[in-house]
């Protein structure tokens, strides 16, 4: 077993429930490398919602809260406010974040509270068998759009930028080096960091979304899509004058004469 992986993973919980070739494992490794590189293991907790992506932190040997569908950001906000000096990482998915969790997502961005959110976007609801998500491209055939999806897809990065998130990036599982770097930057960034990762779901979102069922082929597709501009990858914002939520609270308290 990979040594770094072994040192961070609850090995007695293996094999993981991820399908062979699932992008979640790649994201997990990038997160592990980022956490290890930053040396924040003792001061980090993870919160996740429901979905395959939300299982990523459950295999990590850290304090982890595996919560209810769409609400990870609300739990994470409470946790962060109780321990403002610690780091909190949130794992969510396209359905968890943009559908049921949409409201909490909007407000967490606007609040600009210091959380690092890794949104695993596989453009589908994988755990429940392949239904469409708000990110599913129009006309895609899924279990709940058998005649083709009828909705304009929602772009989580655009939404995050509009709502005031101060670190916004998108990568894919075919860009693990950049992903790891962004996760590091996101954790170090004082403010709401949103890192979206295009991730392959070969079983539920393969043939219907990319015309490919092999994970390696989907990864190749990601590189092509990025090169041809079909999907925008990169860091969209990282320097913003907006203050972080807890920093504002402390400023207010200091102005009132409290020692912070």
């Amino acid at each position: 077993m990979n040594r770094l992986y072994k040192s961070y993973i609850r090995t007695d919980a293996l094999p993981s429930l991820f399908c062979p070739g699932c992008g979640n494992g790649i994201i997990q490794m990038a997160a592990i490398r980022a956490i290890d590189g930053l040396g924040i293991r003792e001061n980090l907790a993870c919160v996740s919602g429901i979905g395959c992506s939300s299982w990523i932190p459950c295999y990590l040997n850290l304090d982890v809260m595996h919560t209810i569908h769409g609400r990870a950001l609300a739990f994470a906000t409470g946790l962060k406010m109780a321990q403002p000096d610690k780091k909190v990482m949130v794992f969510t998915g396209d359905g968890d974040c943009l559908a049921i969790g949409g409201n909490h997502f909007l407000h967490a961005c606007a609040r600009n509270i210091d959380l690092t959110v890794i949104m695993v976007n596989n453009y589908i609801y994988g755990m429940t068998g392949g239904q469409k998500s708000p990110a599913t491209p129009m006309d895609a055939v899924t279990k709940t759009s058998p005649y083709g999806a009828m909705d304009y897809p929602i772009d989580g990065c655009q939404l995050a930028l509009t709502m005031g998130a101060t670190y916004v990036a998108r990568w894919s599982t075919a860009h693990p080096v950049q992903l790891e770097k962004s996760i590091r930057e996101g954790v170090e960034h004082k403010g709401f960091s949103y890192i979206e990762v295009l991730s392959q779901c070969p079983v539920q979102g393969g043939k219907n979304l990319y015309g490919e069922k092999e994970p390696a082929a989907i990864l190749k597709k990601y590189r092509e899509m990025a090169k041809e501009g079909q999907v925008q990858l990169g860091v969209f914002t990282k320097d913003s004058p907006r203050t972080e939520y807890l920093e504002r609270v402390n400023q207010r308290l200091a102005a009132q004469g409290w020692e912070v």
Partner: protein
Amino acid sequence: MANITIDKSCCKGCDICYAVCPKKIFVRSKNRNHYGTNMPDITNPETCIYCGMCERMCPDGAIDVQKEESSENED
């Protein structure tokens, strides 16, 4: 010389490693682990350039690459 190992109990036979190794060190083999998945064979580990892509891209953390000290003199 690279010591490349693949953990039998982790590998799910996803075939990603074949595609990402720039030196094509991982090849299909007849090996199956106890899950029944087809595991890779390692060929020419001495050509490994330690890019680390296999370690990053294996979703199950099965691959470990260690640089071994050569007992021969380098020159």
